[in-house]
């Protein structure tokens, strides 16, 4: 049995988000949504995390950080792109310093749509991506 499904610990990184998706990710921790009931914990440390949540598009400054965080996480690990910008580059896709969505930097397992992504969608994304872990 894979116990990661019972206790996915989450690391959140803002690649260059407008904070809209970040607020919704933090809203998941509040009593209304309470992700801890699903065993999820918001960690501040890639070495402890199983799920990397990235909000915002990847730009020339944040790309190295995104790659480094991904490398520091130990297997099994999954990556979720939260929101339109993280999925495709979104509204700032054509900006001079923007590389694009998170998939331009690291492999992404799940895309959560929305601008901003709703907390229900984010929680759903995490629950569904865990089924992909073999």
């Amino acid at each position, binding site marked *: 049995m*894979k*116990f*990661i499904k*019972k*206790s996915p610990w989450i690391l959140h990184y803002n690649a260059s988000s407008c904070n809209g998706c970040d607020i919704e990710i933090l809203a998941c*921790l509040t*009593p209304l949504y*309470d992700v*801890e*009931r*699903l*065993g999820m*914990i*918001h*960690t*501040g*440390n890639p*070495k*402890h995390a*199983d799920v990397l949540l990235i909000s915002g598009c990847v730009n020339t400054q944040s790309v190295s950080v995104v790659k480094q965080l991904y490398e520091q996480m*130990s*297997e*099994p690990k999954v990556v979720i792109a939260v929101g339109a910008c993280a999925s495709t580059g979104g509204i700032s896709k054509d900006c001079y310093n923007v590389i694009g969505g998170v998939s331009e930097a690291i492999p992404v397992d799940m895309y959560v749509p929305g601008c901003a992504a709703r907390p229900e969608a984010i929680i759903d994304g995490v629950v569904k991506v865990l089924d992909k872990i073999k």
Partner: protein
Amino acid sequence: MNDFMSAALQILAVIIIVPIAGGLISGIDRKISAKMQGRKGPPILQPFYDVLKLLQKDSKTVNPTTRYFLVLSLIFNMFNVVLFFMGAELLLCIFAFTISCVFFSLAGYSSRSPYSFIGAERELVQIICYVPMIILLAFGYYQAVGSFSISYAFQLDAPAVTRLPLLFIGLLYVITIKLRKSPFDISMSHHAHQEIVRGVTTEMEGSCLAIVEVSHWFETVFTIRLLFLFLIYGQPLGWVIGIGACLIIYFLEILVDNATARIKYRSALRATWIVVLVLGFANLAFLSLF
């Protein structure tokens, strides 16, 4: 030979039952904390899921010595709890307990992360906070009971706390630290504490972190058993009072944790030392006079 077998069985029972009890206590603790914050909270078995998941993760260690120190810390914690439940000398248990805390700090120092270093330093400051109180408590216990033996508490006419009220209050004050609830800038409870990433455990992952968790379960049971030592006496009623009081005290600890979520380690050091000096020495002076 029979004595040897029964002792071996007792040790085995303690080593198996204590972590299960510790994990359950931790699960119930998280559930009650969640309820206090208006949340639903994780399942009671969540700590076990966490540890099993950590064991299934890859674990790369920056320095292999980290794992060595953590295993030593766990072994001394086990040793301490086994001694305690077998009714050995209180002083020996406290020394084993302190050694396990020191090994845990060394595990923090063994990796080169600055966060880990800060965590290990603060861990040492914490030891300075609570160990004097626990050692004074052992001396108080000796003065009140006439022996360092833990099993002696079961033959008393009245619980040791009746002669050590101030030291017991001091113990209640410092166990918040040992249960890893406060101070927030070092504690490793499951709240969103991120000031120094995760302190001592910054560079630990997978099975190393699982060892830390299991070691903490042993510590939790030790702490509760230490409270129980001062509440038990030779009557069957002593068990009822002891267990009931331990439950109430643990609930109050959760309440205090949720009410004072932002105690820093410096204020914790100051406050514990004042409490240790005043309550501890007042109680010892009182015992030696009467």
